[in-house]
């Protein structure tokens, strides 16, 4: 029997001690927002918070989690998607396929807890999660937005035209989306 505290709820689970925390969260507890991506702590899709620190749950045997440890998954980050990171993610339409985004958001939330006003270099170092769709530019911009650093970013779109009959016309608009 292992005892876990996940998102403020206690769980008593009968599971082999070498089972990775990721699979206990997904299969025994039934919270599937935390994803399997690599199993070797490389991609970060399985990121959760343990006592406020971001951890990759795929490489943590459940036996090494102490009963007093507070585990927070994406489902427990906020009740209603109101964490500033989640709000910025929605505002900038960060996700594409979305599969890695739970992990990205958990990593970003942990970064901002430690460093409320990160610069680009801080973001480079903290955000090592893999996104195969390549949402990185918007991930960076959304972290700046959530932190209120005032640094502009996101998608840079030049809407031009190669034809005279274009409804956009030849006016070149630069949009921050």
């Amino acid at each position, binding site marked *: 029997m292992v005892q876990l505290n996940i998102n403020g709820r206690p769980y008593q689970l009968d599971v082999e001690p070498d089972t990775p925390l990721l699979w206990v969260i997904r299969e025994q507890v039934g919270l599937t927002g935390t994803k399997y991506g690599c199993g070797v702590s490389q991609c970060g899709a399985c990121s959760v918070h343990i006592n406020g620190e971001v951890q990759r749950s795929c490489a943590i045997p459940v036996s090494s989690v102490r009963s007093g440890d507070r585990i927070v998954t*994406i489902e427990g980050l906020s009740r209603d998607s109101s964490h500033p990171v989640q709000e910025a*993610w929605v505002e900038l*339409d960060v996700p594409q396929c979305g*599969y890695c985004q739970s992990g990205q958001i958990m990593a970003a939330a942990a970064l901002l807890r430690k460093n409320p006003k990160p610069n680009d270099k801080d973001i480079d170092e903290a955000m090592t999660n893999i*996104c195969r769709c390549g949402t990185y530019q918007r991930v960076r911009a959304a972290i700046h937005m959530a932190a209120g650093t005032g640094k502009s970013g996101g*998608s840079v779109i030049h809407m031009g035209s190669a034809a005279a009959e274009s409804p956009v016309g030849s006016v070149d608009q630069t949009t921050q989306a």
Partner: protein
Amino acid sequence: MKTQDNAVANFSRRRFIVGSAIAGGGLALGLRLPVGLAEAAAQDASAASPEVNAWVVVKPDDTCVIRIARAEMGQGTHTGLAQLVAEELECDWRKIAIEPITAGQNLARKRVWRDMATGGSRGIRGSQDYVRQGGAAARMMLLQAAADAWNVPVGELAVANGVITHAGSGRSTSYGKVAAAAAKLTPPDTKSIKLKNPKEWKIAGKAVKRLDTADKVNGRQMYSIDLKLPDMLHAAIKDCPVFGGKVASFDDSKIKTRPGVRGVVRVGDTAVAVVADTWWRAKAALDALPIVWDEGPGVKQSSATIAAYLKEGLTADDAYADTDDGDALKAIAGATKKVEAVYSTPFVAHACMEPMNCTVRITADKAEVWMPSQNAEASLAALSTVSGLPLAKCEAYNHTLGGGFGRRGGTQDFTRKAAAIAKQFPGVPVKLVWSREEDQAHDFYRPIGQCKLAAGLDQNGELVGMHIRISGQSINAYLAPHNIKDGKDRRQVQGLWKTLAGDAQIGYTVRNMRIEYAMRNTHVPVGPWRGVNTNQNGIYLECFMDEVARAAGKDPLEFRRALMHNHPKHLGVLNAAAEKAGWGKPLPAGVHRGIAQFMGYGSYSAAVAEVSVSAKGEVKVHRMVLALNCGHAVNPATIAAQVEGSVAYGFDSLQSQCTVENGRIVELNFDTYPIARLAQLPKIETVIVPTYDFWGGVGEPTICVVAPSIMNAIYAATGKPVRTLPLQHHGLTLV
């Protein structure tokens, strides 16, 4: 728990209308509508929410539910298709929901939703005409219903945001109120439907927000890998690591008594699966299972043997010429200056973040599959084949894909394998999930290739002849041999086509031009990889173009422009990228530019990269400007997202490689197989230059200009062309 509630909710047979992304209810997938009951359920639901036509259902609260046949894998097609339907429907964009249909429903209704395949960047361009017609037809019927009720000519009515008004009498009503009557009307003749001029678009063509973001930030979005069904079992699989090998034997005595293990089964001739009550238990047991493989002849193959085989193809006699204008060989032989180079590109993997997975349940008279598929109808067909049940007794519930990139289209190996396992557990749903290592070891890789290029310049530095010989593996030979006509596999020269209209034509006119392909197939499975053969061919042509330009003593941009007079659209995007990037303007010390243009998927792409290379070989890409002419731009924000994503995916071409040793893939996880990370990515600017006279793709076209523009910038920085990939071969690392 919400996720569990979702899974249960998906099970409701009556729940035909599911989820409103607008209301935050989430896009519930996996509609459970067994064929035969589909019609009854539809009628049931239609009492409350009438189906005006196959594409549009209107609820009493005016919510317009737009049906979608294509798959969503992050590329934004669901939102884009909804924009196109909503534009013609004239509904309130704030009150729409989208509802994916199933392959079984499509079959039961004689494919009223047509093709469900989502690949080749065709999601929107391949269906825009009939989905817009669907929206327009629904609008016409809704208006007619109001006209009938008020006994006025339909021509006197106006509609905006789903509200119908009659100026003469001051009356107004809404779509929700007239939908039931509209549903009973005869649909208009397709010929009478007049689509809007895109210049009048109010919803399409705008950077509206995606409809599917809300559930992707809180863990609620359900992927196929997250599926929960009553009594479900979990399977882990191991295929012979050597392609073409088989299972000789395995000893399950050591693992069958482990906790939770329910069975150890063969999957065809090539694989073994352990089935257990949880996936982790299945996987751990499989890792402990002794398996003896009959590895077959493939075990003798390695990257070195494959390279030697392809090299022989560079000069062999069996190539076919896809283009043979003038006399390229003679022109080059007689030229003042000759340039020659051999390029090579490795196998690369798709590495979808959601590993391959699939759930199947087979009973005596029903087979069902829950999957992430780029082609739900191919999944249905694969299920029917393996289960032995006719299509009408099969159903396929597609899910939002955790990445597709071409991996989850026609091959359907995941469906076939899951079905082969589930068949051995009748009546029990079995979810098969591949480990990352298995996913890397058994992909359909981007084909390996080499290319020998030669060019001749006259005394003025003008290009008088070019000869391109590609030697490499064929996707068609592996997956679709019927597409090879008279020994001509045109797909492998994608992007270098001169005569094939529309899709992926070469952007240069060279008087004497010979383009050849020598097919050299290996034992390694190959398949479409986002951008497919434009990736390698873009590198070959566009990097060599820089070599030739330098040999001619000309600026790479000007040299290209001189060859592009007959290709105004190619030239248009090249100019747009160059202008926005400030080609020719001063750069900080140590920063160099590279440029490339190419065509694929009906769209025109160009890129300029700004790169510096340190003494230690650290390659830093600082900024990239990418220009795209995709004809019509349905959602500029989504297009930018795809362009940004294409840079990350294009980085694979530079730094990733699947090496073959002893017949098997060496790089089995992300510790050895590099994937672009946030810190590596440059600032990306998207230049959209639509000409509004065609419909091109968006998901793939720009990938193929990413690697060559960066390689050309490296060449500018170091003075040495990069001809073989990955960059690590040259002591270069993307930082």
